[in-house]
């Protein structure tokens, strides 16, 4: 029966871990310098892969959307589909997936390596709370960096969509811009940013949890890094679905 209960135990452990992180983050002392150092590293490592991953998506949406909209003679409306899809869904989700792949796995590997080498225990011996010094800065850095990257990918996604719609797809530039600005509300942008904060927190949280759980040697570290990527992606899609349902229910 244990295999049936295992998932619930894991979910419970992650929830407890989350509670720990929130409590630690809410109380001082806080290590701002460490957080900012990690943020710089994350931005440097993620910006190119995230940009390269999101830009083609805008182009694909234009490409396929144009074909579908042409059936109804609605090419002019393409930009509102492109804008909502990029701002609300694909830019946040994909940027977070790439942050998970690039940053989440490296955070998990770093914490796991510290664990294996006994550095985490050493910190605790020096009465530095490892949660406070190692895990919380990672979670906060992910939660801040992901929305920042999302700003860039929003622009990139719409720009690449524009390239495939206007010069290559023959949509009128004026109509494209008009529908983009008329149909997209600031709410769409903020929803995307809010999602990014949620997803980024999930990335940092799972990376910290799986990294702290490492036992054994280098292989366990590698395993934790890989698990972070796949499990975070599942978690991101799950959270995304819940958020979409809530927004639909709220009529946003």
């Amino acid at each position, binding site marked *: 029966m244990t295999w049936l209960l295992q998932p619930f135990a894991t979910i419970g452990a992650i929830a407890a871990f989350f509670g720990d992180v929130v409590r630690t983050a809410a109380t001082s002392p806080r290590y701002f310098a460490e957080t900012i150092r990690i943020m710089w590293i994350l931005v440097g490592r993620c910006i190119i892969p995230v940009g390269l*991953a999101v830009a083609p998506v805008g182009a*694909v949406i234009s490409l*396929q959307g144009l074909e579908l909209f042409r059936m109804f003679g*609605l090419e002019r409306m393409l930009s509102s589909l492109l804008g909502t899809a990029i701002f609300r869904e694909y830019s946040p989700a994909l940027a977070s997936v790439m942050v998970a792949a690039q940053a989440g796995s490296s955070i998990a590997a770093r914490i796991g390596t510290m664990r294996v080498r006994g550095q985490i225990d050493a910190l605790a011996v020096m009465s530095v709370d490892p949660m406070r010094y190692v895990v919380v800065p990672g979670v906060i850095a992910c939660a801040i960096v992901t929305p920042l990257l999302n700003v860039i990918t929003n622009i990139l996604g719409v720009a690449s969509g524009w390239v495939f719609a206007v010069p290559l797809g023959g949509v009128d530039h004026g109509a494209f811009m008009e529908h983009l600005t008329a*149909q997209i509300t600031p709410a769409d942008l903020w929803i995307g940013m809010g999602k990014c904060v949620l997803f980024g927190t999930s990335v940092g949280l799972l990376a910290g949890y799986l990294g702290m759980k490492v036992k054994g040697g280098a292989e366990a570290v590698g395993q934790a*890094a890989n698990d972070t*990527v*796949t499990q975070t*992606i599942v978690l991101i*899609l799950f959270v995304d679905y819940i958020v979409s349902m809530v927004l639909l229910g709220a009529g946003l």
Partner: protein
Amino acid sequence: MRVALEFLRFAQRALVAQLTHFPPMDALVRQTYQAGVGSIALLTMLTVFAGLNLSVQSYATFERFGGQDFLGMFAGIGGVRELYPVMAAVVCGARIGASLAASLSNMKISEQVEALEVMSIDPMRHLVAPRLWAVTIALPLLCGYADVIGIGASYAGAVWQLGLDGGTFMSQIRQFVRLQDLLVGVMKGLVFGWIVALIACFHGYRAAKRDGAEGVGVATNRAIVHGAVVCIVLNLVMSWALYG
């Protein structure tokens, strides 16, 4: 730049080894099983959420101009042509590529690859070719599987959650999703599988003894990220060539 050249040379050697040397059946079956069946649970979970999400999100988008009735068309075409193949490639590619890169770089760091060379066994044929074949076989199958699960999930989302008419949804899918679209999706999976495996093997193979255990981490990380980016870019190129 040098890395790109190195990669091209590696790709050429790997392709020659793959085409001239079909791996022994038992090794191939074992590798394919690990790559394919090992990913099914992950892929199922992902596709269920992605399919539900596709319905809910496109409903929210189409409601703005009163096009809810075309949800089936949009969810079907968008999913089968683009979303499910790319998702399967990125996520299963991350899982499979990471394990390929980890195993190869481990062998490289413990000098097992050099040991094979000393015994005049070509590691390209013996290690890389079976892995390339396995993933090239497994990923298209996973893509086909994702199509089925994804459309089912979109249907569930549209009909049970959003209260759309199930018959309209299915007739839209039947009308607009053609066999070519399914075949294109599966063919994309074939290309993604090959390139993901190749990138993973390349990064695994580049690890050297002096890198130590950290080399394994670097190799797996690069395999995941480069694989995902290359798949997404290649997807655009293929869609452009086929539908543009």
